[in-house]
C-alpha cells in the first residue's frame, strides 16, 4: 500500500528534522498574516534576540529531561546570576571578568548540589531541584536584604543588546552554545551515555555507564546553561531584580517538551529545543500583538502547547506502529 507508506515516510521526515520547526514556520506565517508587523526583519530579529534567553536555559533543561530528570532550579539560578553579576559589576568594567566567573562557579556548585542530592541522597529530581530553587530565592533575599543594587558594565551590555553582522549578539551566543551542546550530545561518549541513562538506567548500569557521574555532570551543565541564559538576560535589561528568573520555571520545560524531548527521558534533541524556544517566544510575541484579552492569551498559549505535545504523541505512536509493520 503506497499511501500509508508515504505517510510514514513523511512522518519519519518530520521526526528527523523536528516537527517543531514546521510549527515555528506555520505560526510565523499565521501571525504575520494577522499582524504584518511580524514580517518585519526587525521583529524577526527581536524574536530571535529574546528567544536566546529562554533558549539557553532550555538547552540545560533538555539535558536534565534527557537523563529522565527535571531541573526546576533554573529559575533560581537565573535570579542568582542576575543578582550576583550586577552586585559585583556595579557598572564597572574592571570587575567584568571576576563577576562572570563567580556567577558561573556558583551555578556549577548549585548543579553539583542538585546532582549529588539526586544520585547520592536519592531525592527525586523534582523535589531536589524545587528545593534548591527555593533555597536560591531565599539566599538572594538574604544576600540583597530584599533591596538589590548594582548594574552592568557598558561592555557587558553588548552581549544582550548589541548586534554583530546584523544579528543580535545574544542570538549568536545561543546558536554557538546550541551547536556545541548538540555536538556533545550526539557525537561524544558523554552524549551517548546521557541518552542511555535516560532511556534505561538499569541497562546503562549493566553496560558499565557511570550513572552517578553522568547525572551530576548533567545537572552541573544544566545550571551553567541557566546561568548563561540569566547573564544574557541581565545584559539585555542592565539591572537587578529578584523576580527575574520566575518566568523560566515552567517555560523552560514547555520549550523542551514542545521541541520534542520526552518527559520520560532518553529521547529528544537540542536542535528541537532551539525550535521549541523560538516557538514559545513567537507564541508570546504573537499573543502580545493580537488583540485578545489576558484570559484568552493564557488559554491560547496553553492550548497550543498541549496540542503540540498531543501531536508528538500521535506522530510518535504512528512511527512505532509503522516500524512494527515493517518488521
Amino acid at each position: 500500500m503506497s499511501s500509508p507508506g508515504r505517510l510514514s515516510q513523511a512522518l519519519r521526515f518530520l521526526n528527523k528534522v523536528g516537527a517543531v520547526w514546521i510549527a515555528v514556520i506555520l505560526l510565523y506565517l499565521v501571525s504575520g498574516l494577522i499582524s504584518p508587523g511580524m514580517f518585519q526583519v526587525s521583529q524577526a530579529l527581536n524574536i530571535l534576540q529574546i528567544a536566546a534567553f529562554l533558549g539557553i536555559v532550555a538547552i540545560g533543561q533538555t539535558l536534565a529531561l534527557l537523563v529522565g530528570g527535571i531541573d526546576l532550579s533554573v529559575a533560581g539560578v537565573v535570579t542568582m546570576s542576575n543578582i550576583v553579576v550586577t552586585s559585583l559589576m556595579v557598572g564597572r568594567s574592571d570587575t567584568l571578568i571576576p563577576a562572570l566567573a563567580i556567577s558561573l562557579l556558583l551555578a556549577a556548585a548549585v548543579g553539583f548540589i542538585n546532582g549529588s542530592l539526586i544520585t547520592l541522597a536519592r531525592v527525586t529530581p523534582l523535589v531536589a531541584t524545587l528545593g534548591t530553587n527555593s533555597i536560591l530565592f531565599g539566599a538572594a533575599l538574604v544576600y540583597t536584604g530584599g533591596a538589590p543594587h548594582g548594574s552592568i558594565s557598558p561592555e557587558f551590555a553588548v552581549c544582550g543588546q548589541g548586534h554583530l553582522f546584523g544579528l543580535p549578539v545574544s542570538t549568536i551566543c545561543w546558536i554557538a552554545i546550541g551547536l556545541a551542546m548538540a555536538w556533545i550530545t550526539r557525537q561524544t561518549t558523554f552524549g551517548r551515555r546521557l541518552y542511555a541513562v535516560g532511556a534505561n538506567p538499569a541497562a546503562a548500569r549493566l553496560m558499565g555507564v557511570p550513572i552517578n557521574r553522568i547525572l551530576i555532570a548533567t545537572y552541573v551543565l544544566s545550571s551553567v546553561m541557566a546561568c548563561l541564559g540569566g547573564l544574557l538576560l541581565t545584559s539585555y535589561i542592565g539591572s537587578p531584580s529578584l523576580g527575574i528568573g520566575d518566568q523560566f520555571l515552567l517555560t523552560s520545560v514547555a520549550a523542551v517538551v514542545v521541541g520534542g524531548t520526552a518527559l520520560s527521558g532518553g529521547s529528544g534533541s537540542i536542535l528541537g529545543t532551539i525550535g521549541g524556544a523560538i516557538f514559545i517566544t513567537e507564541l508570546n510575541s504573537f499573543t502580545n500583538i493580537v488583540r485578545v484579552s489576558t484570559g484568552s492569551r493564557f488559554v491560547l498559549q496553553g492550548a497550543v502547547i498541549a496540542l503540540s505535545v498531543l501531536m508528538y504523541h500521535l506522530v510518535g505512536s504512528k512511527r512505532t506502529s509503522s516500524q512494527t509493520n515493517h518488521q
Partner: protein
Amino acid sequence: METKKDVYFVTRRQAIRLGAGALGFAAFSRVFPAYGADAVSNAAITAVGETVSGSKYKKNGSFRIGFSNGFSGNTWRTECLYSVKKEASQHKEVTDFIIVDGQGDISKQVNDIENLVSQNVDAILCIPNSGSAVAPALREATKQGIVTIPFNLPVDGEAWTAFTGTDPEKKGFGLGKWLRETLGDSAKIVALGGLPGNSYTASAWAGAQKAFQGSNIQVLAFRDAYWEEDRAKVVMADLIAAYPQIDGVWCDGSQVAAGATKALLAAKRPLVPVTGDDYNGLLKLYQEQSGNYPKFKIGLLSEPTWEGVIALRTALKLLNGEDVPKRQIIEPRLITSENYKDYLRPALPDGVFVDTDLSDDELKTLFKS
C-alpha cells in the same frame, strides 16, 4: 452611615522639620482634631468613612504589635518594612513588634494572622496577599478586640478596624488624565500593567479608562508586564513591531515604564510620555534621556513606602483611646518633568522608591551601595 471627608497637605520639608514623628503627629492632630489622618511626606491624605472610636480599644501600658506581610522580595516592601520597623523602635510603649512573612502564599498568611491572634497581640497590621482570603481571619481578630489595620492593598468588607493606602482607581485616573492632557485627545497609546489578574492594576486601569472617556484616545493594547523591567521591555518590543505609531504609554508602575522606554531606545524610536510611580530607575533614565528626546515626559504618582508608618501610628492612636478615620486614603502628588529633581536620588540604585521617609544614608545602608 455618616461620611466625612477631610484633606490636608504637608510638604516633605515641613514633615522633616516637624520631625516626621510624634511631634508632627501631635501638631496635625491639633489642627484636625476629629479626623487626624497622618502624614510623613508631601502627600495629601483624605479621611473617608465614619470615625472609629478609640475608646473601646484603649489599653494602658505596653503594646504587642504584629505585622503580617504578604510577601517580601521587592524593594518597595523592603523599604516599607524598614520604615515600619524604625517607627516601631521609636515608640517605647511598643514592647514587641512581631513580623511574619506570608511568602506570597494566601493560606500561609491566614495562618500567620491566626498565630498572631494566639500570641495575644494588641494590634495587627497587614498587607494582604488576597483581599478576600484574609478577610475572615481579620474579622475573627477584630471580634476578639484586636485592632486590625490592613494597609497598602484593600481587604474585602469592613470587618477590620481601619485602612490606610492609596486608591488605585483614583491613581489610575490621575495618570490617565495626565496622559490625556499631555498627548491631546486623539493620541494612540498602549497600556502595560502588573501581574496578570491582579486587582490593583485592574482598578487603576478602570480609572484610566474613565479619564479617557469622551476623547478619541485609541488604546492599541493592554498587556501584563509583571512590574518587571525585563518583561516590560520584551512586551513593548513586540508592540513596537505591531504598531508604527505609539504616542504614549500608560503604566501603573515605573519599572514597567522604564522597561518600555528601554525598548523604544533599543528600537531607535523617539521616546514618548510615560506614566508610573516613584521608582528611581525611571527618574534616572529621564534625567539621562530627556535632553535627547523633547517629547519624552513623565507623569508619576507615587506609592509611598511610609504607608506602614501611618498604619502603625493609627494602631497606636486607637490603643491610646483616640479616634481615627475608617479609611485614610493617601493622595500622592504628581511627579512630572517639572519637579522630578526634587525626588531623584542620583547616587542611589534604580530599585529605590523615592517617596520614602528614609534618608539617603539609611537607603544606602539598606541597599548596601
